[in-house]
């Protein structure tokens, strides 16, 4: 009873709260990082250096009027934000924050597969949001989104196959342990896969330079144009939760998760003083920062260019990567 129900439930409660709180602070971090990149200060009014902005923003969003357009499909309109957020949160179930059983909700033997399938559901939220709004700009955006997410989904999944080949397991914990056994982070032996996953991650989370579904300046906000108040912020939460989960997975698969640098070099053993979850958090932060940095720097791709990159560049490279990994695996 205690082991099968209470402790997992407690873990889920802690994890959910941690995610939601970190999302609000991540929004603050993004605003600050981009502000500094643009020689501004960012939020400065609420609390010292604007740190309380992270608390004030959600309160504002909750208090805002929730508008449902008259011509919208009421049921789908309410369902869409939920469909968008829930998969993003569920995906955290298989993300281990440390090697010990205390640090993950579940270590299922097909963890990576579970992650991929659950995050794929999120696209329904975006498609339905655009469709249910019964408005032209969101419709265009949701068509873009479905095409984009599906094509990049394929590229990312193909790429991850090569990681699975290298580690020989689909379990997230297993993949990190395999990196410990091999004595190297997979980012170094699978650099191509790492770059592909990063590009795919940008596209799947609708971030610049692939933020076409929400393209503020083209589609006036894209699929969430008609949303307001808390429903809008659910999309917001989903987007940021997705970014965090994909950063975490990238850190786990390619940067050794909770392992210190050069996990088998004895001379660096003093680094073990720092607990594993701090290593992992540091790596996640690095990726989050990378996402923000890219957003501050790059313009946006056009729809056709985005599809071209996905189908003509990423997928062939991913396939070639699988072949090369397979050959190396057989030979070595």
């Amino acid at each position, binding site marked *: 009873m205690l082991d099968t129900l209470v402790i997992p439930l407690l873990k889920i409660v802690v994890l959910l709260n941690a995610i939601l709180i970190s999302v609000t602070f991540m929004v603050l971090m993004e605003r600050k990082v981009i502000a500094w990149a*643009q*020689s*501004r200060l960012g939020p400065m009014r609420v609390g010292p250096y604007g740190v309380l902005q992270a608390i004030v923003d959600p309160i504002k969003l909750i208090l805002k009027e929730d508008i449902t357009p008259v011509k919208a499909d009421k049921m789908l309109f309410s369902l869409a934000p939920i469909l968008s957020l829930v998969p993003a949160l569920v995906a955290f179930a298989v993300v281990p924050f440390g090697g010990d059983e205390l640090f993950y909700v579940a270590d299922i033997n097909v963890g990576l597969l579970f992650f991929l399938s659950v995050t794929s559901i999120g696209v329904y939220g975006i498609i339905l949001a655009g469709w249910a709004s019964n408005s032209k700009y969101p419709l265009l955006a949701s068509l873009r989104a479905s095409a984009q997410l599906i094509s990049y989904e394929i590229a990312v999944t193909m790429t991850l196959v090569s990681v699975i080949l290298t580690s020989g397991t689909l379990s997230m914990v297993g993949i990190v342990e395999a990196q410990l056994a091999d004595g190297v982070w997979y980012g170094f032996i699978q650099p191509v896969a790492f770059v592909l996953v990063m590009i795919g991650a940008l596209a799947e989370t609708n971030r610049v330079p692939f933020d*076409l579904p929400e393209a503020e*300046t083209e589609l006036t906000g894209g699929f969430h144009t008609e949303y307001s108040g808390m429903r809008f912020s659910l999309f917001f939460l989903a987007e940021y939760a997705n970014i965090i989960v994909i950063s975490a997975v990238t850190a786990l698969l390619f940067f050794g998760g909770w392992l210190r640098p050069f996990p088998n070099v004895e001379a660096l053993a003093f680094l073990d003083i720092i607990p594993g979850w701090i290593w992992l958090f540091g790596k996640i932060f690095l990726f989050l920062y990378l996402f923000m940095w890219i957003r501050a*720097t*790059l*313009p*946006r791709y056009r729809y056709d*260019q985005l599809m071209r990159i996905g189908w003509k560049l990423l997928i062939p490279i991913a396939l070639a990567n699988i072949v090369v990994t397979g050959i190396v695996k057989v030979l070595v």
Partner: protein
Amino acid sequence: MATQSAPIFDTDELVINMGPQHPSTHGVLRLVLKLDGERVVDCDTVMGYVHRGIEKLSENRDWTQIILLTDRMDYVAAATNNLGYCETVEKLLEVEVPRRARYIRTILAELQRIGSHCLWLGTHAMDIGAMTVLLYAFRERELVLDLFEEYCGARLTYNSMRIGGLPLDIPSGWDQKVRAFCDVMETKLPEYEELLTNNRIWLERTRGVGVISGPDATALGLCGPPLRGSGVYRDVRKDEPYAAYDEFDFEVPLGTQGDTYDRYLIRLEEFRQSIRIIRQALDGLPEGPIMGKVPRLLKPKAGETYHAIESPKGELGYFIVSDGRATNPYRLRVRPPSFCNLQGLKPLIVGHLVADVVCLIGTIDIVLGEVDR
């Protein structure tokens, strides 16, 4: 049709309304786009949302009162509007403007060009998704506005010129500040270029987008950077020099492809040429009066005149008719560069994707206050 099998899916064209409330129509431009998927098959430009009847108002205003109406046309480049109007009236009155005034006018006009181009660069890049460039460009535009504020007290609608000269001489030390600004601007231009010029995404988004040939551009009556981007040599500053432009050495950048990227490169080069002109003008700034001999009562003799200047957006012309009896124009007509360049929008847009529409609105650099007047 009876002979054709009915399509399985309904393939109607989608008509969407872009603007007048849209983040990237630069004001209140409204485009009615007919889309086939994401491709634009037809485009209808609707305007008039900020029509204030400036031309008609001018018929009931004193000659000098009109200067402040011209501020409100291209409100991001008020000084060049003032310049064009004042020079036209001076031509009508046959008034000689002192050399010092002409020099200062040139400096103001070129500062204004830098300020206006900063706004164009920022919004154009923002439309394509590069948000940092906007903040960078506005940072430098702020410096231009500060200089104008110090000169005439206003930051947007300057009312900075008078018929026959200038209302104010430059404040002491102002020329040094302008020089310092030129130095700063020169170091900031590479920052913009670093973010955009060789950026692969920027190249893909702008190269080959909105191509227009030189003859087509001329036939459509385009002017300014959109015309020069197609390789047509036309710059009023060179062809019909006004103010003190005939005394300065500068180049007119020309494009070769006539696409959005060329227009971008041309405007960036114009930043440099403007800095060059300002420096020459400051070096050779003559002493002397700033107002010419203007009669107390402005009453030009009956006649009409047309005079054009090169505003940041293109050829800004004023056509004024005086009946010789009143102290106001009988008719005033403006040839606004934004309006003429807007003619080119439809041929540029048709056949492109929705994402290119915002990019093309940005590249022709329109200000709706000037389109509608």
